């Protein structure tokens, strides 16, 4: 146990910091969910990252990555968030589809898709959930009917991030007549294919951050199935593991949020009861605790260990932390909390309201916290099912 960064790790941090300082756009980019223009601005940022080989840092060098170990990945993320760099429009590719394809894809698929994914040439949407399925992925009803060398896709997907403007999507489809965990396949499809319709879903504040995808006899080659036919559940669980676990939620974002909260408190000290500093301190401690725990997990993985159901504890912790950080900020803002960005007299209200709405989704998506507690109880602690 040694909590000092090595000279190499320090040098790596300096390298990232230098690159970010030189390249991170000075202002925020327009939303990638709202306009094609915003989406393309984010794609450009992905291209710039890829040029610096900072796009897919955890991927092997062969696919355009740097093959970073997890500690360096954490350092990279720390510097990325510290620099205030844009949210990754490529996120589904980096953390979900990319690693899954490396594990389950054919050589042809890897060659066709991974470099374009890394370059931002193909931006991917995920198409897992369906109306009525929610946390119950085995309840998927969209079908892939085999017709020679093609699948014919039909059905409806929902809560697809990036789907409005993305190029491709990956989703779960089942053989007609199959049930629950059986007979499902993970299929890739272009979002401009005939028969695909996308409909943005407005979030409660009017922002379009999700989409529905309707598939009406969409034909895709069998070669664009990822993994074996009927093994979609298995492939998908590997992917879900990535999402719930270490990868998607790097601690840096919460630590940056905690630092902003401290600054907000300091700036509004005179109008805030002294006790609020204890909530601020709790948020800061929890953000650090999350970072320390992820460092510990990363070290365990580096030493050949694995992450199992304890990934569910991460999900619960960060989602509750995120809400609490934002609730504290809104309480400090008081009657400024409700103001939308264009309102006068907002002062330093920043994007806490937007962040709060986003945080409210935390305990719901990527497997609701109720499901996560079941997993902890049953798979980690061995309590009986049902």
């Amino acid at each position, binding site marked *: 146990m040694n909590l000092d960064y090595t000279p190499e790790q320090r040098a790596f941090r300096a390298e990232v910091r230098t690159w970010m300082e030189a390249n991170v756009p000075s202002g925020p980019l327009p939303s990638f969910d709202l306009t094609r223009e915003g989406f393309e601005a984010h794609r450009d940022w992905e291209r710039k990252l890829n040029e610096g080989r900072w796009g897919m840092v955890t991927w092997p060098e062969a696919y355009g990555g740097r093959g970073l170990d997890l500690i360096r990945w954490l350092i990279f993320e720390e510097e990325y968030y510290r620099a205030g760099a844009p949210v990754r429009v490529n996120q589904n590719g980096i953390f979900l589809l990319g690693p899954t394809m490396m594990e389950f894809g054919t050589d042809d698929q890897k060659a066709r898709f991974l470099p374009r994914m890394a370059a931002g040439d193909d931006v991917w949407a995920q198409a897992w959930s369906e109306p009525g399925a*929610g946390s119950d992925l085995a309840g998927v009803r969209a079908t892939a009917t085999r017709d020679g060398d093609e699948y014919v896709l039909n059905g409806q997907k929902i809560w697809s991030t990036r789907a409005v403007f993305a190029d491709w999507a990956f989703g779960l489809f089942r053989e007609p007549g199959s049930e629950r965990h059986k007979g499902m396949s993970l299929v890739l499809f272009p979002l401009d294919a005939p028969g695909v319709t996308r409909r943005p879903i407005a979030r*409660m504040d*009017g922002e379009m951050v999700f989409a529905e995808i309707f598939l009406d006899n969409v034909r895709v080659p069998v070669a664009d199935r990822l993994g074996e036919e009927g093994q979609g559940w298995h492939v998908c669980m590997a992917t879900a593991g990535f999402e719930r676990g270490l990868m998607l939620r790097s601690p840096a974002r919460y630590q940056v949020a905690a630092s902003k909260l401290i600054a907000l408190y300091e700036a509004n000290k005179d109008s805030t009861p002294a006790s609020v500093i204890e909530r601020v301190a709790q948020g800061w401690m929890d953000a650090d605790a999350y970072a320390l725990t992820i460092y510990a997990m990363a070290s365990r993985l580096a030493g050949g260990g694995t992450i199992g159901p304890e990934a569910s504890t991460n999900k619960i912790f960060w989602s509750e932390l995120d809400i609490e950080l934002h609730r504290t900020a809104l309480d400090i803002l008081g009657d400024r909390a*409700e103001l939308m960005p264009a309102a006068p007299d907002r002062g330093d209200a920043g994007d806490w*309201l937007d962040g709060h709405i986003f945080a409210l*989704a935390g305990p719901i998506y990527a497997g609701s916290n*109720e499901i996560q507690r079941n997993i902890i109880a049953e798979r980690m602690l061995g309590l009986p099912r049902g």
Partner: protein
Amino acid sequence: MDFAFTDDQAAITQAAREMLVETCTPTDLRRMLEAGEPSDQARWSTINEMGLLGILAPEAAGGLGLAAPDFVGIAEAAGYVALPEPLVDLAGVTIPLLASLDDDHGWTERAIGGAVVAIGHPANRFVADADTADALLLGDGEDLHIVSRNAVTLTRAESFDPLRRLFQVDWAPSDETRVGSGWGDAADRGALFAAAQMIGLAQRSIDMAVAYAKERTQFGKAIGGYQAVKHLIASAQVKVEFARPVVQAAAAELALGTLPSRARIAHAKIVAGEAADLAARTSVQVHGAMGMTWEVDLHFFLKRAMALNYAWGTPAAHRRTVIDRMTSLPTGPDKTFASELADA
């Protein structure tokens, strides 16, 4: 000592609630938003015809001469439907204040008749409903002024709650516009009836969660059959059950105007806000991803609850009042009611 509402109180509350629930559905709210209508004239006429606006005004001024407990259930119902029109501020706060002025320039009567007087109380950063107001009641130091809508410049301060219309008001006081001095108990009334609305909002969030949990299935059964979902909702309902009587007691004691009665209002505002917040977040959780969308009606209630929680004094400010009362005057089982305590 009687904590029950009278038959008259129950009847008027029931009538108002039925009218509001019927005329102010989420579908109505959506229609208004799509049409860009700030308020619904038909509903406002009905509110007016039912005499709700003058409920707390003296009979001499053309009102019903009733008291806060007669209005608290109506304010709760207004919260339950996330009413866009300013019934609560007008009937609960502004009209009683107008009626207390030496010379109200005739505005009490006009307001009871349906004219909107927006109130720019210093407890609030912006003036709600100023755009549809006939006049604005504004403060300049200790002085109160009534200013015509045409004599002010409004800048919209867009709220997360699209049905809440807030404005920054630029205006100039003059001798002609001055109508009196001092806000009286307007801040207490504002806080009290905001608390009542939050009780309604909390119950609405829970009712929606219950309805959704009965209908929505996961893993082959209604999610309301899962203990985790049941317990989430039950815990929110407990919060509401122990906040509502606090609001009712605060209403009954409003007229005392003492530190204990004001502390009870502060208490009511705090716990009603907490109940509304917990209920809204619980309902979002129960609704799953759907609860995050514009498409599901829940957000109307979540947004209003958040806005009201910080309006008419933040929870932090109200907590200071509670602590002030707690540390300066006797507490104990014989000191529950404000009438048992002289003010400090």
